[in-house]
């Protein structure tokens, strides 16, 4: 029964609220960087409510069931990931072997659901965007997994999120070491690609292929995708905070530190997003398989040496 409470309250409502607020911060900071005023505070909520009230169009020639199922698959996987992370963060003993791998796998499902929706809609631009999304996953997944293995190595080859958190509480955060810092840099770059934000927003390039895989979505499907992206804006930084920065704690001053860690990561994402142009897909693949993978390998070697 307690897990249903976790699923609904923490996994869905709290994650959605924080994600929507974070997306407002992102839009507002972007507007201020460009000397604009920016949207009002409730704008992301209103967008979702509006989209839920709109007509749901299904294009002719699309495969209907996949087209309608894809947003639900991505959305539910994000809820599952955030529930797992919250459960581990609140009660460190409540963990099972390999839940880290479950989280890593579930974090790719949103991208896969976007690909499914893009290919199912039967639009050539959506297919192009989906194929770019596929290439992007192939490029960033390798350094991401290498970098995630650094906390595993440092905590004595433990693949439980709860044990990694306990290890960090006892002997300092992972980011305190050289290998942890290098891995964190890699993970932040991969996070930018996972969230499909500006240097790596190649699949959704608004000015190039007008929204990519989401081009044919309207109404509730688009609302689910937007909510999924906003929730990922909380879930992926939260995963990084847990793995590299000792998680969030709730007693006294530690709560403030936890919030500051999250706001710092969101501010970093926004700054990277506002100061970079979009890369081509071949440049992005070269970037992730070249320098970023190299840094990830170096950090893994350093972690094995115990630095």
């Amino acid at each position, binding site marked *: 029964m307690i897990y249903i409470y976790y699923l609904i309250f923490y996994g869905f409502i709290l994650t959605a609220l924080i994600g929507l607020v974070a997306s407002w911060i992102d839009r507002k900071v972007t507007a201020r960087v460009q000397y604009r005023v920016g949207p009002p505070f409730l704008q992301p909520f209103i967008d979702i409510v509006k989209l839920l*009230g709109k007509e749901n169009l299904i294009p002719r020639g699309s495969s209907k069931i996949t087209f309608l199922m894809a947003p639900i698959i991505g959305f539910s996987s994000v809820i599952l990931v955030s529930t797992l992370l919250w459960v581990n963060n609140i009660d460190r003993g409540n963990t099972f072997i390999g839940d880290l791998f479950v989280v890593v796998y579930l974090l790719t499902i949103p991208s896969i659901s976007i690909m499914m929706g893009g290919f199912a809609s039967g639009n050539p631009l959506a297919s192009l965007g989906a194929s770019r999304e596929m290439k992007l996953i192939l490029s960033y997944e390798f350094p991401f997994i290498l970098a995630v293995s650094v906390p595993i190595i440092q905590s004595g080859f433990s693949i439980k999120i709860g044990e990694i958190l306990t290890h960090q509480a006892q002997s300092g955060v992972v980011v305190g070491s050289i290998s942890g810092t290098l891995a964190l840099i890699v993970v932040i770059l991969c996070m930018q690609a996972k969230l499909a934000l500006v240097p790596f927003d190649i699949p959704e390039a608004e000015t190039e292929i007008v929204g990519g895989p989401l081009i044919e979505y*309207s109404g509730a499907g688009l609302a689910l995708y937007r909510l999924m992206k906003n929730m990922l804006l909380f879930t992926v930084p939260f995963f990084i905070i847990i793995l590299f920065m000792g998680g969030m704690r709730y007693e006294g001053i530690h709560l403030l530190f936890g919030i500051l860690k999250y706001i710092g990561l969101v501010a970093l994402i926004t700054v990277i997003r506002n100061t970079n142009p979009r890369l081509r897909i071949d440049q992005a693949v070269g970037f992730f398989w070249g320098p970023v993978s190299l840094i990830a390998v170096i950090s893994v070697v350093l972690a094995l040496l115990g630095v």
Partner: protein
Amino acid sequence: MSIKLKALLKSPWVFHLSTGSCNNCDIEVLDCLTPRFDIERFGMLLAGSIRHADVLLVTGSANRKCIPRIKKIYEQMPKPALVVAIGECSLSRGMFIHSYNCPVPVDHIIPVDVYIPGCPPKPEAIIAGVVKLIEKVKQSKS
């Protein structure tokens, strides 16, 4: 007023359709997105795809090639949706009124909710027109 319409008026995403205009009105529409006018403070965004849009901004004198496409675009827009005609050409065909290629103005093809005159209308005029549209919808549905 239903929550559906209330939310629609708070975040109208616009789609920009040029039906054979001289590009002047299109440039003025894009001016609304610049820092000086910043329509994002009203929650408006420029949607790339018609299926994401709530407001259709039509510019230009609908010529014969465009008429079936305007109808198609209007049908593809998820309802509830609104249409705004911008510029003299889309209101009354402007200087092309005697042209063989522009048989009817835009409001004979699709229902238009608000007209913004001018050749081209200033960005202030476009924003004022959208505000009038919001007032009109509020009054008619309350």
